[in-house]
C-alpha cells in the first residue's frame, strides 16, 4: 500500500527526516515509536502533504501513485487520513457542514453525485454512535468547545465517516482517560478491514494491547533504526529508548 524510500524532509530549514525507509502492506497496522523530536509527527505531516514541511529527497508511493505530486486534498481522496495530535478548532463551521463538504468533495473526485440528505444524516448517526459522540456535537463548530477527549473521539468519528484506506493516528491516545481510550481503540478496530492499513504513533502499552500491531518501528533522529513485532513495543515500554540508542551507536 505505502512505500517510503530514503525520505528526507525539513521544517523551517531544519532537517528532521534523514532517510526514512518504511513499507506498509494492505491490512497491516504499524506502530511508530521513538523519543521526542525523533521525527514521528514530521513523517505524519509529510505523508498528508502539510505545506509547512519540505521534502528534500526521496519518494513515497501510495497504491502505485506518486504521493508527493498530489495536493493534500487529493491525498485525502485517495484514502489517506490523519487523526491530528492537536485537532484544530474551526469556530462557525458546524461539524455537519464540515463533514458534508468533505464527503461530497471525495464523491466529486470519484465522479459521484453529492450524498442525499437522509443518507448523510443516517451515516453521521451510525458513526457517531461508534465513538460515543452525542448528537449535539454535530451542530457545534468543528472542535469548538470540545474537551481534549471529545476532540480525539471526533477524529475517529471523522475517520469512520470518510472510510480511508490508510490512517495515521498521531498520538490519538494522549490525553484520553482509560474509558475514552478503550472507546477510541475499539472504534478504530471496528473500522479495520483486510484492505485498510494504519500507522499509529503512541507512547503507551495500553494502545499496543488494544491494537495488536503487526509491526513496530523505532524512529531515532529522523531514521528508522529498529524494527520488530509487537514485542518490541513492550520492550520499549519496559526499558525506554536508551538501549536502542546504544545499539545504534555501536
Amino acid at each position, binding site marked *: 500500500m505505502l512505500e517510503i524510500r530514503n525520505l528526507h524532509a525539513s521544517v523551517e530549514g531544519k532537517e528532521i527526516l534523514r532517510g526514512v525507509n518504511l513499507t506498509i502492506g494492505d491490512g497491516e497496522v504499524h506502530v511508530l515509536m521513538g523519543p521526542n523530536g525523533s521525527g514521528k509527527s514530521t513523517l505524519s505531516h509529510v505523508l498528508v502533504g502539510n505545506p509547512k514541511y519540505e521534502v528534500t529527497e526521496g519518494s513515497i508511493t501510495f497504491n502505485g501513485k506518486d504521493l508527493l505530486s498530489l495536493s493534500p486534498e487529493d491525498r485525502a481522496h485517495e484514502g489517506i487520513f490523519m487523526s491530528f495530535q492537536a485537532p484544530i478548532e474551526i469556530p*462557525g463551521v458546524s461539524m455537519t457542514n464540515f463533514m458534508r463538504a468533505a464527503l461530497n468533495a471525495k464523491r466529486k473526485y470519484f465522479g459521484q453525485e453529492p450524498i442525499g440528505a437522509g443518507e448523510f444524516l443516517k451515516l453521521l448517526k451510525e458513526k457517531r454512535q461508534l465513538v460515543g459522540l452525542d448528537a449535539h456535537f454535530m451542530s457545534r463548530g468543528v472542535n469548538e468547545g470540545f474537551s481534549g477527549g471529545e476532540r480525539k473521539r471526533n477524529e475517529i468519528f471523522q475517520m469512520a465517516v470518510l472510510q480511508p484506506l490508510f490512517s495515521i493516528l498521531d498520538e490519538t491516545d494522549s490525553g484520553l482517560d482509560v474509558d475514552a481510550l478503550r472507546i477510541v481503540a475499539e472504534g478504530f478496530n471496528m473500522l479495520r478491514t483486510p484492505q485498510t492499513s494504519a500507522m499509529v504513533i503512541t507512547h503507551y502499552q495500553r494502545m499496543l494491547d488494544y491494537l495488536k500491531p503487526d509491526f513496530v518501528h523505532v524512529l531515532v533522529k529522523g531514521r528508522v533504526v529498529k524494527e520488530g513485532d509487537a514485542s518490541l513495543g513492550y520492550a520499549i515500554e519496559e526499558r525506554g529508548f536508551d538501549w536502542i540508542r546504544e545499539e545504534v551507536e555501536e
Partner: protein
Amino acid sequence: MSSLQQYLDLYAAQGETLCGASCGAMNAAREAALAGLQQHGLPTSRNERYKYTDVEAALAPDYGLNLRRTLPAVDPYKEYRCAVPHLSTSLYFVVNDVPYTVQTPTAPLPEGVLVQPLSQADPALVAAYYNREAGRKYDGVTALNTLLAQDGLLVYLPAGTVLSNPIQIVNVAAARADLMVNRRLLIVAEEGAQGVILLCEHADGQSRTLATQVTEIFVGEGANIQVNAVEETTEQHTALDNVYVHQAAASHVSYNGVTLTCGQTRHRLDFRLDGKGADMVARGVVVADGQQRVDNSLVVDHAAPSCTSDMLYKYVLDGHSVGAFAGLVLVEKGAQKSLSQQTNANICAAPTARAFSQPMLEIYADDVKCNHGSTIGKLDESALFYMRQRGIPEREARLILQQAFVGDVLRHIELERLRERLAHLVEMRFRGELSACAGCKMCR
C-alpha cells in the same frame, strides 16, 4: 480650484432652482451649511475621521445634479428585483435623489405610519426634526449634502405603533452621465414605536455616480428600531453616507451594515445615547476586493447613565482593497454604569489588501465597563490545512472559513429571512458570482 468650489459655484448659479423643489425646512438649513463650508471647507486627511477617505478626490469629477428632478422612464416596481424571498415588505424607491411616488407599495402601513417625500410631508413635522442631529457639529460632507439636497424621505412611526412588515427603501443611482445625488432620510420613531427598516443601496454602473446621504434617526423613549443597510453598488459608485442616531431613555437601536460590492464607501455613524438605559448595537460586514475602499467611522456618545453599546465589525479584504474601521466610544461625565463592547476583526485574504483599525475609548466617568479590541490577520492556515486533509479543496476551504468569519456577525441579524438572504449573498460574493449589483433588471 478645489473640488468644493465647483459645487459652491453651482449653488450660486442654481440655488433658486434647487430651493424651488424643496421644502421649507431643507431650505432653511442651507445658509448655515454654506457658511460652514466657506469657513471650514471639506474634510482632509488631517481630520482623524476622514483619514482613509479622500473627500476632495471623491468630489473632484465634474458631477451634474438632477436639477430638473427627472426620473428614468422605468417603473422600479416592475423592473426592479431586490426582494428577500418570503419576506413581505412595504417597498419604496428613491431613484437617484427623487422619491418614486407614482405607485404605492403592496403591503399597507399601519394607521398613522407615514413614508413620504420630505417635500410633501407635514412641514411642521419635518421642521421639528430636520438637521437637528446632523447639524449639531460641523461635518463637511453633511454640510455639502445640506446645501445641495433637494428632497428625501420621511419615515414616521407615531407613539406606540408597531410595524407588522419591515419598511424597505431601495436607493438606486442610475444615470447616463456622471451624476451626484444628495439624499436625506429622516426616520422618526416616537415613544414605544417598534419597527424594522431595510435600506438597499444600488447603482447601475453606467457612468460615475456619487451619493451623499444624510440619515437622521430619532428614537423616542422605549422605542425599538432595527435598521439593516445593504450595499450592492458598482466600482463606479462612491458613497458618502452619514448617519446620526439620537436615542431617548430605554430605547433600543440595532444597526446592521453589510457592504457586498461598492466602489468607494464611507459610512459615518454617530449614536447619541441621550436618555437613561438607552441601548445600541451596530454590526458590520465588509467584503471587498479589486480597488474597492470601505471606511466605517463610528462614534457612540454615552451622554446618559446606564446605557449600553455593542459594536462588532468584520472585514474580509482581497485584491488591492482597503478597509478602514474607526470606532470611538465616548463616555461623558455623569454617564455612570455605561457598558460598552467594541470589536473589529479583519482578514486580509491577499498580501496586497490593507486594513486599518482604530478602536478608541474616551471616558470621563469612573463607574463604567468598556472593552475594545481589534485584529488584523490572514485566514487560519492550520484550519485551512485541517480542512484540506479531510479532502475539502483549498478554494472551498477558504470560502467556508471566510463565510464562518463573517457569519459570526450575520447570525445576530434578528430577521430570519433577511439573515438567510444575506448569508446566501455573502456566499455568492465569496464565490465570485456576485460581481456587482446582480439583483435587478435596472442595474443590468
